[in-house]
């Protein structure tokens, strides 16, 4: 009865979802291995490597894997061969993230240049196939237009990233810090932030039973974010620091408004019992607002960014506190839902699929959420007491993400078990 026959095969998104937590484990182990020195500044090789293991290895993996799955559902647009796309993009991202992290750690130009090449080609391929699927799709909802604008953000962050990696590899003389900030702005604001908002417009009301996002906010946020990033980019190329700060302030305020609105909508939700996704989103929204207050403060008062730990705390709050919880919260809905949907299809309306909470029990997700929150607290505290807390924070972060991986793997094991059961019951007369 449900029109799921055209959904991409489960194997397409699953490979991204199951490998992403392993990159976060690797980032945590790197922090534990490097110890207190890793947080001496945001420019240490270890900090750069850990950041990109998170942003490419975890965030980008899940985001691209989820897009491959979700485009038909939220935009009515299908990739031509989702499994083939997944088979190209997944190894590209995985190898690219590892090469880049190794390049930072070893300081080897050949590794940095290889990472730039692999990641640049992978992103270009993904952008081409998605653009092809989305061309001709009308902007009938803020979600569709948000996804389209986010793809410009992806082009921006990858373009700047490739340029920066090649500049580092080749020893080019460029305004490294201003460009690295802009690269982060396009990545976290233009790509991840806009994509997250575009998805939130659809999934927050759907999964958390909240009111919808007001249409004006839905159309306005991605536009405003992109305009601010264009201003910021112009400022970097024209060397106008005041305009760059204005762009940063605009991005921060837009993000705070989006997060505040989402918190307000969640306050009006009609689901009585808070689940792990809801709690992960609450954590993510609060951490994001705190991070963006730091960003806005530094935009108005630049000397703040020179205070010890300011930028690292901002990064930890926004990525480990904001984006990872949003993404994990969504994984905890998407993986059981896809398992249920594929089991429902396998049952051919003759054998019912088990309930979603049988595929991924709430208690396991809730305990993992507590472990992750503790790891995040340690990571933030390590900025104040690095000698004492950096290694425990790295280990706790690795452990919490290994637990996420274990939970997802458990869901897939149960999925296969139920699938075998359904197939046996269908063949038994």
């Amino acid at each position: 009865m449900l029109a799921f026959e055209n959904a991409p095969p489960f194997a397409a998104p699953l490979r991204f979802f199951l490998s992403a937590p392993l990159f976060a484990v690797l980032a945590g182990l790197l922090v534990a291995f490097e110890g207190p020195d890793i947080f001496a500044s945001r420019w240490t090789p270890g900090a750069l490597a850990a950041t990109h293991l998170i942003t490419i290895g975890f965030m980008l993996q899940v985001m691209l894997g989820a897009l491959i799955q979700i485009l038909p559902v939220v935009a009515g647009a299908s990739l031509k061969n989702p499994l083939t796309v997944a088979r190209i993009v997944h190894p590209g991202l995985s190898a690219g993230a590892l090469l880049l992290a190794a390049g930072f750690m070893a300081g080897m130009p050949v590794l940095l240049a290889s990472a730039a090449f692999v990641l640049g080609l992978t992103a270009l391929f993904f952008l081409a196939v998605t653009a092809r699927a989305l061309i001709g799709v009308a902007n009938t909802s803020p979600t569709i237009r948000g996804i389209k604008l986010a793809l410009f953000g992806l082009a921006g962050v990858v373009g700047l990233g490739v340029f920066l990696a090649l500049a580092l590899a080749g020893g080019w003389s460029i305004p490294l810090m201003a460009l690295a900030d802009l690269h982060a702005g396009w990545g976290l604001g233009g790509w991840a932030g806009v994509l997250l908002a575009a998805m939130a417009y659809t999934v927050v009301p759907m999964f958390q039973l909240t009111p919808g996002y007001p249409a004006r906010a839905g159309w306005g946020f991605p536009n405003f974010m992109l305009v601010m990033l264009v201003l910021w980019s112009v400022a970097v190329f024209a060397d106008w620091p005041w305009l760059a700060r204005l762009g940063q302030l605009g991005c921060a305020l837009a993000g705070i408004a989006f997060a505040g609105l989402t918190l307000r909508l969640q306050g009006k939700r009609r689901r009585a019992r808070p689940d792990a996704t809801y709690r992960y989103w609450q954590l993510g929204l609060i951490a994001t607002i705190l991070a963006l207050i730091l960003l806005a403060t530094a935009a108005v008062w630049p000397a703040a960014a020179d205070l010890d730990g300011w930028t690292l705390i901002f990064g930890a709050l926004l990525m480990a506190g904001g984006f990872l919880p949003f993404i994990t919260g969504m994984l905890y809905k998407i993986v059981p839902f896809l398992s249920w949907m594929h089991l429902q299809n396998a049952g051919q309306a003759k054998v019912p699929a088990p309930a979603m909470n049988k595929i991924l029990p709430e208690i396991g997700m809730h305990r993992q959420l507590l472990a992750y929150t503790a790891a995040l607290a340690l990571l933030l505290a390590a900025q104040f007491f690095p000698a004492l807390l950096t290694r425990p924070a790295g280990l706790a972060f690795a452990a919490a993400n290994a637990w996420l991986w274990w939970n997802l793997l458990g869901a897939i094991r149960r999925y296969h078990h139920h699938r075998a059961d359904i197939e046996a019951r269908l063949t038994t007369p």
Partner: protein
Amino acid sequence: MSHAKTPHVVDARYMEPPGPFVATMEMLDTLKEGEKMLLLLFREPHPLYKVLRQNGHDYETELLPDGTFEILISR
């Protein structure tokens, strides 16, 4: 529930999937030739659109300021 556009309304704004899909298909079955129904949702239901097109139904969608999508479906 009734509406200016049609008396046949499914307000699925606080329903979990697949509730909206099931409720819409059930109401479509009860409509007579020439009648229309209205589905209210906080998202655009692309998988439903596809089924509607396959089954020869016309539909028009309007996004209201509060984020509600009004989908007017012809029998």
